[in-house]
């Protein structure tokens, strides 16, 4: 798994690549919490390079979503691969996250 963070004036863009599983979900959580603690109120998670996620990864997504909602921030996902989208649909996550087809759409909102 690789996590890349870039920040602009309006938002933080976090790109997650590879596999998010039981062995490394904690690292993703730590990276995202650091972005929140750094004061970002709008986080865009680019999932174009994410090709595998297990329940440990889904747990992190939900934890971050809850945190951002509590602080009235925005957490947007974009570019889910079909396999990941399927897991989101099964889990009911498609209706609890704002999912955009691509980065540009997620930035615009």
């Amino acid at each position, binding site marked *: 798994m690789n996590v890349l963070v870039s920040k602009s004036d309006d938002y933080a863009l976090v790109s997650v690549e590879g*596999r998010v*599983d*039981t*062995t490394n979900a904690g690292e993703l959580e730590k990276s995202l919490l650091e972005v929140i603690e750094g004061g970002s109120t709008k986080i865009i998670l680019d999932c174009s390079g994410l*090709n*595998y996620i*297990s*329940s*440990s990864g*889904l*747990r992190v997504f*939900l*934890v971050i*979503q*809850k945190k951002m*909602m509590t602080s009235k921030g925005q957490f947007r996902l974009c570019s889910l691969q*079909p*396999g990941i989208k399927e*897991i989101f649909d*099964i*889990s*009911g996550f498609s*209706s*609890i*996250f704002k999912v955009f087809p691509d980065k540009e759409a997620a930035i615009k909102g």
Partner: protein
Amino acid sequence: MHKNKTLNIDNQISNLEQVAAFLEELGEEWELSVSQVLSLNLVLEEALSNIILYGFEDNNQHSIEINFKMEGDQLTVSLIDDGQPYDPTLKDDPDTTLSAEERPVGGLGIFLIKKIMDNVEYERKSNKNFLVLTKNMK
């Protein structure tokens, strides 16, 4: 046509990487699609992480056996461990219609296994847990 393959791993979370690599090879040999291999990987990660993280009260090394069998289009994956008795089929499904605020964190693993596989059966025999998962791969 009959095909069989077995993998044994110790009860360490880091061994999930070994499982992923094994499934890649199995997928090539048995001509499974990339998405089928990823789904199987997910199912096994969920089942094995439950066994490894919650199945053993001692700190000893335990071996977990994973058998793969393909009969025609029917794939059967059996997981055998000597941990605490645990029947995942008895676990209630999460309510997937809840909002983000209401949704409890966690509890999705077994649900994903049930949704991805066609059938999930559990049996306790000779002090061991047998979890048998089947799916038509056609």
